[in-house]
């Protein structure tokens, strides 16, 4: 195995197609693995709950980036699709009595179908026009779950209490182990999602998505069926989002419409923009960053409260302002997001002591 990138000489296509070639890359991967394993042993329950939220956000952000970053179809319907996944899974498992893993799998399929349906305007619309069309899907789904005609969804309560997750004879335990057990489940699913998404984009399917993003007329002229490529992108993306929605429902053990508003759609969009459009790693960084940011702001404000009392009393306003400021700064300093920032750091060390 080559030590550095300059020493990489592939002898076969198989070795060239590997995602990692140098020892440094494998070491970083191993460190990531160690980090994932160590987290539940060092963090307390509060920080574990944040870690779990991050893992769910990663699955959702990766899904959204497949559609927005890779296929170039702007979507504001994320919140609605999360809701479809959440409600479907909960109704199938708790009310219809299906095993939870099966219910979650069916929720993924259901969200993919709904996502494909709301992707239909994408066949005719591009860019901002499509964004407005998907905004309609967000509003329609939000309206339906809020009104809940015939009390089909929530039985008139306005929310659904979800039973504690259990499958194949395993039951998630009480307060002391709840977060840690969930962490294991979510970490496995998040890693699988990230790997699956990464794999899509080294095959012809992912390339056809990117071709649609870069030049749709040329894509069609080389034989890519635009209709099919766009709808497949909507389906695959919504599938990931549906999984995130279903997991949100079972993890938080209560489903209500407030969790799936337009604000959520925009938060996810912010995640992939800050992280880096059109990169799976970017979606992961963005999800971590945007979930941690409000927590960090709150902690800093609390710590400084004795010195600057204004920070504590006006916390929500301070939080929003800082949030906006950080995003603006990011877009100015590195428009291609955290992923590009990280690549630049790596390049700096690779070329050191030279500049380029």
């Amino acid at each position: 195995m080559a030590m550095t990138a300059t020493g990489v000489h592939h002898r076969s296509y198989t070795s060239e197609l590997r995602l990692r070639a140098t020892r440094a890359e494998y070491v970083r991967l191993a460190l990531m693995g160690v980090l994932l394993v160590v987290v539940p042993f060092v963090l307390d329950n509060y920080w574990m709950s944040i870690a779990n939220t991050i893992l769910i956000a990663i699955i959702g952000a990766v899904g959204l980036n497949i559609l927005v970053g890779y296929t170039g179809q702007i979507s504001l319907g994320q919140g609605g699709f999360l809701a479809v996944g959440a409600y479907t899974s909960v109704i199938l498992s708790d009310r219809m009595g299906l095993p939870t893993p099966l219910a979650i799998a069916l929720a993924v399929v259901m969200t993919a179908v709904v996502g494909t349906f709301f992707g239909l305007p994408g066949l005719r619309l591009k860019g901002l026009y499509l964004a407005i069309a998907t905004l309609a899907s967000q509003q329609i789904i939000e309206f339906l779950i809020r009104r809940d005609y015939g009390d089909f969804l929530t039985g008139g309560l306005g929310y659904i209490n979800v039973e504690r997750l259990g499958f194949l004879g395993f039951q998630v335990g009480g307060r002391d182990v709840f977060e840690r057990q969930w962490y294991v489940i979510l970490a496995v699913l998040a890693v699988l999602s990230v790997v699956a998404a990464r794999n899509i984009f080294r095959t012809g399917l992912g390339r056809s998505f990117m071709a649609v993003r870069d030049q749709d007329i040329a894509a069609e002229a080389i034989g890519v069926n635009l209709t099919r490529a766009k709808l497949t992108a909507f389906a695959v993306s919504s599938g990931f989002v549906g999984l995130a929605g279903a997991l949100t429902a079972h993890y938080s053990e209560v489903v209500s419409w407030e969790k799936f508003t337009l604000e959520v759609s925009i938060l996810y969009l912010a995640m992939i923009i800050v992280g880096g459009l059109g990169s799976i790693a970017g979606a992961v960084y963005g999800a971590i960053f945007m979930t941690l940011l409000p927590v960090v702001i709150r902690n800093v404000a609390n710590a400084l409260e004795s010195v600057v009392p204004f920070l504590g009393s006006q916390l929500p306003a301070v939080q929003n302002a800082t949030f906006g400021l950080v995003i603006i700064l990011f877009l100015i300093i590195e428009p291609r997001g955290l992923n590009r920032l990280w690549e630049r750091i790596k390049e700096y060390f690779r070329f050191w002591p030279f500049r380029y």
Partner: protein
Amino acid sequence: MLTRAYQHSLNGSSRPEGLPLLEVDDISLRFGGVKALTNVSFTVTQGHVHAIIGPNGAGKSSLLNCISGIYHPQEGQIRLHTGGGQDFRGKDVQEGQHLLTQLPSYKVARLGVARSFQNIELFSHLSVLENLMLGRHIHMRHSVLASMLWFGPARKQEIEHRHLVEEVIDLLQLQSYRHKPVGALAYGIQKRVELGRALCIQPALLLLDEPMAGMNAEEKEDMARYILDVHELAGVSVVLIEHDMNVVMDISDRVSVLDFGKLIADGTPDEVKADPAVIEAYLGSDTEDDEVKDAERRMQERTDV
């Protein structure tokens, strides 16, 4: 007979040389009141380099767009003939024909009609390799689950198709750019990548829209050589739009001339060169029209006063 060291044939046509491959039959294309093409007919023969020339705005690109299914002419038919010989897998193919005027452009591409664009239309964020692999799109299977798994059919397929792509890279001498994003490459190289992407389709017919526009003499020579390589080594039939008359007269077997959407000449380069209608379209002529002369005289008088 020229031989080549490559394993794969780049020629996707199963038509024996000398038979008609593409028939453009009396097509007319209008955009509202603008007549882009009027009753244009010609035939492209298998194994020929067929040039389409004409002044700017003559409808050359519109014609190419009609063939590749991007535009659909209001009248007339475009037929692609297949079969009568062996395809690149060595199988005998029955004779048949496809009506290109009724197909969407991705289905035309699936019949092996590959094209390049006048203004380079590459996937600019992707590498040269990815662009060329996209040329293999119609020959690959794209299952979502297999792609997510990667190990298994997806990886096997990637490697399988890489072999042909590498041959195209070799033919067009793109080795050193393999992993560069195409958006960052020089214009001449991008044109070459676009030709490469079309070749990866294993075209039955290659449509090139001004492959040498904006190039210097040396680059033009290289490009002409690549086109001839493709044509002679692989036997691919080429329809070529080009403004450089030296190139056109040198490399083409047959030339069709368009002017204001009408076909004004069709023949061998020598015939076309001598055709008075072509000379008039390109150079203009002293008018014989009395009314025009009259109008010119009156204008002259008015300015004199």
